[in-house]
């Protein structure tokens, strides 16, 4: 029996629906990590013996689309990635702390990538989100950095609406770990891509809605091709990115030979959709979009953070040609 069906099944849709309802009711940028923990989603990707739901890569990617759509607390992404590292290490105590939300994880993000000659993350970085534990990511793997091993902290004004930002220095950390059967870098790449797809979809929906109700020159502005066509392009970018993400998630989950290439492709098209749909939405809103009133800026800020957080464009472009 042929089984070509890259789209989410009704069961998968059901898994994310509960979360999506809460996130939507809260609105963009309004859902904190504690609420996600209460809903039980924080350890959802942990195996059942570690107290999780045993969500697969593909299931989890669907969750991240919803989290991105409403610009949820950035630490949710970090904590879910950390849970995979902790589970791979067999660290059950940490797993249950992460799942319960008592130990939120933030990101430690380098300026241009971590030093390549080092066994783990070290040196200058930015910390994103208030946390006792930070996850550092590189193509070599992931590493959890305790707040005790971070010095020279200097708070800065944060670009991200949900996460504080601190300039700091990592003085010591565990060596890079690939995090089990699925390389944590590829997992982080696809989950960041999923977030960006949520961003792109939400920005498109917001822009299209505004184009129907905003009237200028006696017409809804959506009747002008200068507005309608860029929105049509957003729809095209979103559809392309979303389907590529589905394909890549299956490839990574089921260990396809070309999984790394599929994941990288998903990242490139997803970041493009996230960023460009966010700017199109701002442009559609005109001065309203330029003001912080509408919340259109949240999508743009999260999109650029996500791009940098998961390696930056050049790194993924090079990876796309490496295989």
């Amino acid at each position, binding site marked *: *029996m*042929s*089984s*070509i*069906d*890259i*789209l*989410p*099944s009704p069961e*998968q849709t059901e898994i994310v629906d509960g979360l999506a309802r809460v996130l939507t009711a809260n609105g963009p940028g309004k859902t904190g990590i504690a609420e996600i923990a209460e809903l039980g989603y924080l350890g959802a990707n942990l195996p059942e013996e570690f107290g999780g739901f045993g969500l697969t890569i*593909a299931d989890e990617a669907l969750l991240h689309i919803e989290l991105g759509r409403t610009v949820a607390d950035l630490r949710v992404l970090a904590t879910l990635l950390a849970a995979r590292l902790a589970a791979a290490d067999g660290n059950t105590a940490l797993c249950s702390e992460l799942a319960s939300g008592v130990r939120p994880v933030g990101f430690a993000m380098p300026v241009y990538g971590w030093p390549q000659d080092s066994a783990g993350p070290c040196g200058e970085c930015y910390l994103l989100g208030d946390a006792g534990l930070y996850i550092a990511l590189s193509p070599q793997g992931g590493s959890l950095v305790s707040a005790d091993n971070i010095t020279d902290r200097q708070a800065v004004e944060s670009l991200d609406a949900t996460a504080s930002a601190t300039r700091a220095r990592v003085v010591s950390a565990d060596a890079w770990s690939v995090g089990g059967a699925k390389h944590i870098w590829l997992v982080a790449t696809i989950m960041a891509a999923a977030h960006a797809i949520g961003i792109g979809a939400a920005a*498109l929906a917001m822009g*299209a809605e505004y*184009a*129907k109700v905003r009237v200028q020159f006696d*017409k*809804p502005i*959506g*009747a*002008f*091709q200068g507005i*309608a*066509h860029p*929105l*049509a*392009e957003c*729809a*095209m970018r979103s*559809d*392309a*990115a979303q*389907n*590529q993400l*589905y*394909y890549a*998630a*299956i*490839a990574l*989950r*089921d260990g*396809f030979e070309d999984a790394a*290439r*599929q994941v*990288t*492709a*998903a990242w*490139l*098209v997803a970041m*493009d959709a996230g960023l460009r749909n966010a700017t199109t939405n701002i442009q559609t809103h005109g001065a309203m979009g330029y003001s912080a009133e509408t919340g259109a800026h949240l999508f743009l800020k999260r999109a650029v953070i996500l791009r940098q957080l998961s390696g930056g464009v*050049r790194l*993924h*472009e*090079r990876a*796309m*040609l490496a295989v």
Partner: protein
Amino acid sequence: MRIEFSSEERHFRECVRDWLADHKPKEKRPVNGSPAVRDFDLGWQKAKFEAGFGAVTWPKDYGGAGLSPVKQLIWFEELARADAPDVGSLSPAINHAGPTIIAVGTEGQKAFHLPQILKGEVIWCQGFSEPGTGSDLGSLRMRADIDGDDLVLNGQKIWTSYGQFATYQETLVRTEPGIGKHKGITWLIVDMKTPGIDIRPLTTIANDQHFCEVFYDNVRVPLTNVVGGLGNGWRTGMVTLNNERTAGAANHSAELVHAVEELIELARTRTGPDGRPVIADEELAARLARQRAEASALCAMTYAILSKQNRGEQSGPEVALPYLYFGELLQRIRLTGMDVLGGDIVALDSVLEKWTRGYLADRLYVIAGGSAEVRRNIIAQTMLGLPRSY
């Protein structure tokens, strides 16, 4: 969420791969408009017909391969992988006229025309566009007046692909003017040898003669050549649009992936100005990387359409997206191709000719059958619910 070909499908893929290795044309397809291209396309059609691949999208009852949508996808993936030619000038017959006759033609029309198409005996052309009728197809004006048992055609068609070689034309004519834009139109089979037809090939931007203008001066066509009923032409013309979408998307995405992979290989093997491979240029490499990712996304869009079809779900307005994505991505890839070629773009008769000619010829994918602008209008209206815009 699953991608798993059955053992039967994997076996089919092997069969297609083996057959293509042995039977795909050894020589390159001649340039459009040359008489040789007619023989080439018909010869390739005959070879496919003899192997049971005459029309992969047609049902078995009408001599088609009756392939499942997944097997159609496999067919097109293998065709592209083998760099085998597509249907070329057989496209109007295989992809449109044939399926239309299958859907609404009489038994007599089916029995007479379908075997000729399958066996590679005839080329069809399409007479839809007119000088005043491009994107706005409903504005077509060519008259066909009933006179006894015939319709008498007067007027002009244009952009008629392969018109100079065609035996038959699927023609939209106005049989009852003045009753509304999409009413009073009739879908007609016209024998291109009928007296009063004058065909003049037009040269395209790619220096070939892909299409023609066709003039009709009191051309008599028997009423028995009407397909789908007098005055139902608009509906008849649209009837096949949906069932060709999966095959079309599969065909285009497979070919596009193949083109990007070839281009990356070309950029790796050609030497740039600094003695390094062309691909060492960072900007060019970045573009190739993106285009490879986007080609992958186009395939995923095709798999998504197929997924819906496998579930038995009706396709929504999002089916309009892949073709526009394909057409616009193709333009970017073609431009990258020009940069990879460097000065070799000048020689239109070199072995690299397909990149330069392709750069020019493939512009048709953002113009023909609904321009990119019209497609954006449709997406904005049907998918996003925006007001109609012009």
